[in-house]
């Protein structure tokens, strides 16, 4: 991941350890506040990013706590962009889709939450590049 950030960006680097998820959540909360989101939207965005990180730890890194996760948060003119970069197992982006909710079972809600909450959720893998980049965007709605 490049080390240049813009004026409206912050970059957090953590290890793939679940104990840092709280830290990630408070960070997303603060940036969402700066972006001008309403409290209800802020808790949603926090959930989406938490789920994305938890998935990287569990699926991309298979529970290995020693790997790197880069989280870049950007304040857009009216919204927020979250980029999560890992160097773990790649899965083809088409496979990253949430399930339907008709069946009640433990698990399988993470991607559903992310897609439901964010305006855009995009997994990017490239043959020449290690790992996966996940780009999520949410805009501040003017009313409602």
């Amino acid at each position, binding site marked *: 991941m490049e080390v240049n950030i813009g004026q409206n960006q912050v970059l957090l680097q953590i290890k793939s350890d679940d104990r840092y998820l709280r830290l990630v959540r408070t960070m997303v909360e603060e940036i969402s506040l700066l972006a001008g989101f309403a409290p209800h939207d802020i808790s949603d965005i926090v*959930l989406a990013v938490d*789920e994305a990180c938890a998935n990287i730890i569990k699926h991309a890194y298979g529970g290995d706590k020693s790997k790197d996760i880069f989280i870049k948060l950007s304040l857009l003119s009216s919204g927020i962009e979250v980029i999560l970069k890992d160097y773990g197992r790649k899965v083809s982006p088409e496979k990253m889709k949430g399930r339907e909710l008709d069946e009640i079972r433990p698990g399988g809600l993470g991607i559903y939450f992310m897609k439901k909450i964010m305006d855009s959720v995009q997994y990017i893998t490239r043959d020449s590049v290690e790992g996966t980049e996940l780009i999520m965007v949410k805009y501040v709605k003017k009313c409602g």
Partner: protein
Amino acid sequence: MEFERKTESDVDVILLKGDMDSHTSPKARDFFAGILKEGKKKIVVDLDGVKYISSAGLATLIEVFQKMHRYGGSLKLCGMNETTKGIFEIAKLDSIFAIYETKDKAVAAFSS
């Protein structure tokens, strides 16, 4: 996460404290496994001390719900805040779980 357990008449009331995310949920799972082993039929889980719940926390509660259902027990939830209520709603779990505003209402519902 912290867990407090008390009995009100024949109902087991479990008070959870802390965020229920993928870091803390394994502990919650272990805790509930111990309780379910006793075959408890009436359980109220009070989420008053839970500020945040992720899909990992929901999975834990769904598991408890389903296991209890299998042996004829019943689980009721209470004490949600705006955030946790919102997360149950996005997951459409608010219609699956028996959710009460307060612990007293949840306990009372067992004897009505």
